[in-house]
């Protein structure tokens, strides 16, 4: 750097010496911006270097005749503590405008994300709309409702909701009452009814899973509808979906505590083969006709012969195996 560079004390750390040399240039404004940036960052935590900076400033003031009185040794720490104690989070800045921009930027991003997820939710939930007995507007109504778990305290109002089909609800309403009460004990009631319209996009964000994360009551209502529409053994012969629903409802309850947590994989609406009562949805070839009560075709599932089919299925085999 120079021909008469300093001869440091051998005990002095060379790195510290280098930093002090840089600090001397920084005090005089003669440090290149990149190095100044790094050194300023170092000064924030290197108290020894910061003390050196303070003493050099003081000696300069003495040389210029500007010195009158010493501040207390811990003056800087007291000022920092006072600033922190007053909880001055950020100064009133035009930089504060930048902060607002940052928030706006984040908010804008969140809104865009919410909008895209809502669009996906509509695409996903709309095929479920043509349930046999349900009005065509049911899925959109569901999508517009608040978070499904938070809706638990509205349980008594479910049957009276005009958008919800109350037709077959009586079938499983007693079953639904128990989990609904349990959820009502978990989820705070006032937060549901007081939820403002402005928060609805957030509810829509969590809504793309109308089947899996729906509140047991509402879902059971749909289940009852689907069951009534299916009206056959293919719908729900062994009641297993109810256990799945209980499990999913538990995860939905967990969602109520962690509203921004990612949705667990088992709460996704697909594969729909896991929910046989939903087999009449749009993923099949037909759309909810009476003939769709049959089981969804699933190509990778080994076809187990039914008892009645067994004989008829094996009947041709001798013909095939018969020697010619």
């Amino acid at each position, binding site marked *: *750097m*120079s*021909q*008469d*560079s*300093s001869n440091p004390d051998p005990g002095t750390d060379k790195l510290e010496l280098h930093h*002090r040399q840089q600090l*001397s*240039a*920084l*005090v*005089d*404004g*003669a440090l*290149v*911006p990149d190095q*100044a940036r790094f050194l*300023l960052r170092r*000064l*924030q935590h290197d108290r020894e270097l*910061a003390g*050196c*900076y*303070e*003493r*050099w*400033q*003081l*000696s300069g*003031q*003495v*040389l*210029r*005749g*500007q*010195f*009158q*009185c*010493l*501040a*207390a*040794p811990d*003056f*800087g720490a*007291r*000022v*920092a503590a*006072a*600033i922190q104690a*007053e909880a*001055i989070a*950020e*100064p*009133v*800045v*035009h*930089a*504060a405008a*930048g*902060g607002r921009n940052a928030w706006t930027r984040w908010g804008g991003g969140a809104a865009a994300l919410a909008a895209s997820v809502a669009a996906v939710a509509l695409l996903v939930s709309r095929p479920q709309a043509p349930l046999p007995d349900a009005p065509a507007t049911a899925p959109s109504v569901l999508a517009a409702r608040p978070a499904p778990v938070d809706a638990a305290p509205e349980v008594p109002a479910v049957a009276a909701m005009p958008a919800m089909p109350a037709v077959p609800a009586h079938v499983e309403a007693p079953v639904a009452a128990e989990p609904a009460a349990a959820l009502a004990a978990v989820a705070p009631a006032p937060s549901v009814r007081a939820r403002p319209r402005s928060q609805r996009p957030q509810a829509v964000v969590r809504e793309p899973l109308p089947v899996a994360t729906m509140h047991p009551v509402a879902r059971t209502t749909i289940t009852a509808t689907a069951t009534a529409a299916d009206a056959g053994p293919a719908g729900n012969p062994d009641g297993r979906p109810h256990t799945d629903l209980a499990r999913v409802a538990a995860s939905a309850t967990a969602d109520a505590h962690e509203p921004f947590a990612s949705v667990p994989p088992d709460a996704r609406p697909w594969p729909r083969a896991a929910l046989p009562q939903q087999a009449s949805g749009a993923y099949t070839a037909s759309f909810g006709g009476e003939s769709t009560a049959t089981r969804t075709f699933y190509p990778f599932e080994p076809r187990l012969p039914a008892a009645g089919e067994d004989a008829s299925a094996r009947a041709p085999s001798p013909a095939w195996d018969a020697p010619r």
Partner: protein
Amino acid sequence: MADAMQKDSPQELDLELVRRVQRGDSTAFDLLVRKYQHRIVGLIGRYIADWSECQDVAQDTFVRAYRAIGNFRGDAQFYTWLHRIAVNTAKNHLVANNRRPPLGDIDIADAEQYDVGIRLRDTDTPEREAMREELERTVMQAVEALPEELRTAITLREVDGLSYEEIAQKMQCPIGTVRSRIFRAREAIDAELRPLLDVQSATRERSRP
């Protein structure tokens, strides 16, 4: 080299620190406090005689400055802006305590030019006066003990306020040499100043109630 920061360099550093604070980096404000605390305490000491009270008002000054730093646009020097806050804070403190503030403000030009020679108010206690004299004597002796080239370099820089390039032209040496000489001079002064400050801070700690 470092052309961007050479012009009016200490003010550039102040502005950079202010910009950092405005961006939310509150630790940059600590460097501004360390730089100007003694001058602000000295300025407030002209209004308020009691040393500890003076420290409190100086602390309040910096807190107010931190709150209002968003309004600082860099049109004036940072210390000019801080000086005004300190004067107002000191006067408000006196009024709040039913004491009469001085009729005339201490102008910043007066504060810069007549700091040592003209005392607008004789508020110095003998202890503070003795401490100031000892500190000044220590620094001056350290400068006198420097080799000629170091003493010239640090004097041209600190007293005359010349830039490194101007000093290099005057001393007919490379800028790197100027940079090194100034650094070595500061290290030599600091070697004398530091023990004195340590003793004084230890004395203050012992005498604190």
